[in-house]
């Protein structure tokens, strides 16, 4: 699946920003506090086709009942944001399969 997170955020309003213009560690904490399930990936691993930027191991939150995942999004000048975006049920399993077991 090809997915441009920036384009998605510009063209949709069904996502939630938990925090923005923040530090990466604060964003990880918010993801860990707000997700019912957490998996971890390495920096540069592609989640939904978008490379995740961050410190290893990078937490990715899954809220299966709500059909969302929580990921960080980093811009060089604006810092890091934690966002919750919708995800299909089949993609949830693909994300789970990426867990590095950290």
């Amino acid at each position, binding site marked *: 699946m090809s997915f441009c997170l*920036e384009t998605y955020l510009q063209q949709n309003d069904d996502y939630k920003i938990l925090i923005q213009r923040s*530090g*990466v560690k604060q964003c990880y904490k918010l993801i860990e506090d707000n997700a019912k399930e957490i998996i971890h990936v*390495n*920096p*540069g691993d592609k989640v939904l086709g978008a*490379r*995740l*930027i*961050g*410190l*290893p191991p990078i937490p990715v939150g899954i809220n299966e009942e709500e059909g969302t995942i929580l990921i960080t999004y*980093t*811009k*060089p*000048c*604006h*810092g*890091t944001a934690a966002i919750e975006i919708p995800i299909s049920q089949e993609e949830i399993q693909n994300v789970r399969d990426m867990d590095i077991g950290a």
Partner: protein
Amino acid sequence: MKALVLLGCPEAPSQTPIGLYASYKLGQMGYDVTVSSNPAAGKILDISDPEGVYVKKRVDIEKCLDEIEEGDYDLLVGCVHKDAAATFFITYYHILKCKALALVFSRDAEEVAEFADMVESSTDADIIAVRAFHNPNPIKVRFDKYLKTLEEE
């Protein structure tokens, strides 16, 4: 030999001269150098070096991140002066898995220590950590020393 020079947010005045200088020095050493930056830092480079004397190749930091793979570069040199710059450097490092140097600088000593610690705990990269903001010379001096060691290797 291919080198990638990674720039962060251009808010730190020392970054642009160090980016140009690193590109120039590595080019002199025989590296095929590419500078990866966000659009704002890229525009500053374009205007500072209109004929591309120092920066021969420039790419967008996010597009580049999407396209690079392990083995594409032999050396990564990154400016790390913000939390986001540290995360970009660490991510580039984990994808490229090549020799890497983090130039950690800030006007604030606590930030220098914090960013150096982020890089050190997440990579095996070499680190130059120094207080610098307007004046790029403290970074240049340490960088020159590092390059001498690199040449001797």
